């Protein structure tokens, strides 16, 4: 009973943090001249109120969920992966190059192949900072940030150069984008008339796979042990260096898959750059961190979490149309939620300390009584 109670309170605090963030968002809406309640109603109605909205929400949640479950792996191993953006870009590039190289493969071959290349591209881009951390003691926070910048420049270079749509050169418009990718690489739609595609199912499966990996395999046990205490893990004979590299590679793999799905599930079926990583990823590499944190770094809880944040993105666009509130509001709100959730950890810990202290006192008095009794 006691256990259940402490679990409930530990859940209440992050939820309280989100409510606090949403309340601040309401104040922001008011300041922007929009009615907060009807504003939020518009948002959630657009995101979850009808099939089209649900489909759009599912689409937005795909990269968030994939990056998020990747973050679950790395954060559980106590490795801070800020490189989701770059890993998405690299995964997308590897996959795009593959699709352009093998246009004649049929769909059953090409779709799995490009997704696999996306996974590999992201994994390599994650493994590099992993190796730098393991062998040269370079902070993964910094190297992943730097590799984000490198990945964006590689993307710009390739999309303006060898990968550019030949039509863009003919027309002289030179928009940095690829030609339409082979139709056999399109991700199949799940339902007639709705935009949501196979990528959503893949993301759900990936979330489940990561849960199995973390809690049902020896590798997952090793990664989590390294996360809890590197020293203890080393003492127990777990290869810490290799685990760090693995954690970042797996985390990158998930982001890479997200990048690939973003390309092959896009409406234009091209890879396009506006020169920044945000332009391609929609900041999913960062927002995935928000999703994972909100889910308590649990891959299965990341599913509803990603749907919530995906829905907020869809809702924000609706709000922009309905009430002229810039959709950038959601990015700001996401930032607030991160700050609040991370800060709320303090209160959760305090509560836990208080709780275990009380338990210790109770235990102590019980033992004393027993001793007195005998």
């Amino acid at each position, binding site marked *: 009973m006691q256990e259940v109670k402490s679990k409930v309170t530990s859940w209440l605090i992050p939820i309280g943090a989100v409510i606090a963030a949403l309340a601040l968002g309401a104040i922001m809406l008011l300041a922007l001249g929009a009615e907060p309640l009807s504003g939020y109603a518009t948002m959630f109605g657009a995101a979850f109120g009808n099939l089209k909205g649900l489909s759009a929400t599912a689409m937005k949640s795909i990269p968030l969920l994939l990056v998020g479950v990747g973050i679950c792996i790395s954060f559980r191993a106590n490795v801070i992966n800020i490189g989701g953006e770059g890993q998405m870009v690299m995964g997308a590039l590897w996959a795009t190059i593959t699709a352009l190289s093998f246009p004649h493969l049929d769909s059953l071959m090409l779709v799995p192949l490009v997704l696999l290349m996306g996974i590999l591209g992201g994994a390599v881009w994650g493994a590099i900072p992993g190796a730098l951390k393991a062998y040269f*003691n370079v902070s993964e926070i910094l190297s992943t940030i730097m590799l984000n910048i490198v990945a964006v420049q590689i993307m710009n270079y390739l999309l303006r150069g060898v990968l550019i749509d030949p039509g863009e050169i003919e027309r002289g418009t030179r928009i940095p984008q690829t030609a339409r990718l082979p139709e056999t690489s399109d991700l199949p739609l799940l339902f007639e008339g709705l935009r949501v595609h196979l990528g959503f199912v893949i993301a759900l499966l990936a979330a489940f796979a990561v849960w199995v990996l973390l809690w049902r395999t020896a590798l997952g046990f090793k990664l989590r042990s390294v996360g809890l205490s590197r020293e203890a893990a080393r003492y127990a004979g777990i290869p810490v260096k290799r685990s760090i590299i693995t954690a970042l590679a797996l985390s990158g793999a998930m982001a890479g898959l997200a990048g690939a799905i973003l390309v092959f599930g896009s409406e234009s079926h091209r890879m396009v750059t506006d020169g920044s990583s945000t332009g391609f990823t929609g900041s999913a590499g960062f927002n995935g961190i928000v999703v994972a944190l909100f889910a308590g770094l649990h891959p299965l809880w990341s599913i509803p979490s990603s749907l919530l944040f995906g829905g907020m993105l869809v809702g924000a666009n609706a709000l922009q149309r309905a009430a002229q509130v810039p959709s950038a509001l959601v990015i700001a709100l996401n930032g607030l939620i991160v700050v609040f959730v991370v800060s709320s950890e303090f209160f959760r810990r305090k509560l836990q300390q208080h709780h275990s202290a009380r338990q210790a006192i109770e235990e102590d008095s019980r033992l004393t009584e027993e001793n007195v009794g005998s």
Partner: protein
Amino acid sequence: MNDFFSTTILIATVASGIRLATPFLLASLGEALGQRSGVLNLGVDGVMLMGAFVAYFVVLKTGNPLIGAAAGILLGMVFGLVYAFITVNLHAEQGVSGIGIYLFGLGMSDLLFQKLVGTPLPIMPFPEIHIPLLADIPIIGPMLFTHSLIVYVAFLLVPAFTLLLNSTTYGMNIRAVGENPAAVDSLGVSVTKVRYSAIIIGNGLAGLAGAALAIELGIFQHNLTNSMGFIAIALVYFGAWRPFGVMAGSLIFGMVAAIVLQGKTLGIIPRSASDLAAMAPAVITIFALVLVANRFKQPAALSKPYERGR
């Protein structure tokens, strides 16, 4: 190409490199101060964006770049106060909460811009100040001594910060708090106060960095900084937490950017090659990180919240 022409280009490139290095330098000096006190702030880019917007807006309304810059600093300090509360009092994980600050700044600056300004109007830049006598030195003069006030301030802060960190009690306290907060605490110096002040000054500089960028460019737009704040954080490691090291890193980034820009306008380098050139500083930084990680120790208490008795 004759000699006169190439000298002019050289002067212009170096001068613009110094200008472009200024936001990096201001932001990374601020970050270095915070890290020296043991606090990692990954939100620099967000604070820069907010500083840039506020400065842009204020200059748009008042026409005075100095007031704009002051507004940037002030806004950064407010963010610093909030960040100090989160990290010092609430012990929030610093790697992650900074990303929250970044996202907030990214979204908020865009939101405010769209709501309050909408169509981008150019603003008044800083006037150039020609330092008497020094500006008249051939070649060196126009390279180094014909900049705006903010550039001089940024580069003067380098020796000032070196002095501050190495030769003042306050600087000693900052460094000590970053290395061993428990020891400082036992001497009766407030860890909280030292960290609060370092974070607030550091974020003020990040705000000023954003202001410098917006006022120098004369515009604001969505994601104006384009990850400059993140680079500034890496420059702190690049410079091994020392002001002059940070300055060297900033100058490399500024110079590369200037060369790329100059090459593009002259049509010497094709656009695609300039993307690769733009990548160079990031790659150099990664190698520098490898070197620094083995030679210089980061502040021992970096990103570790201090709790008495633990």
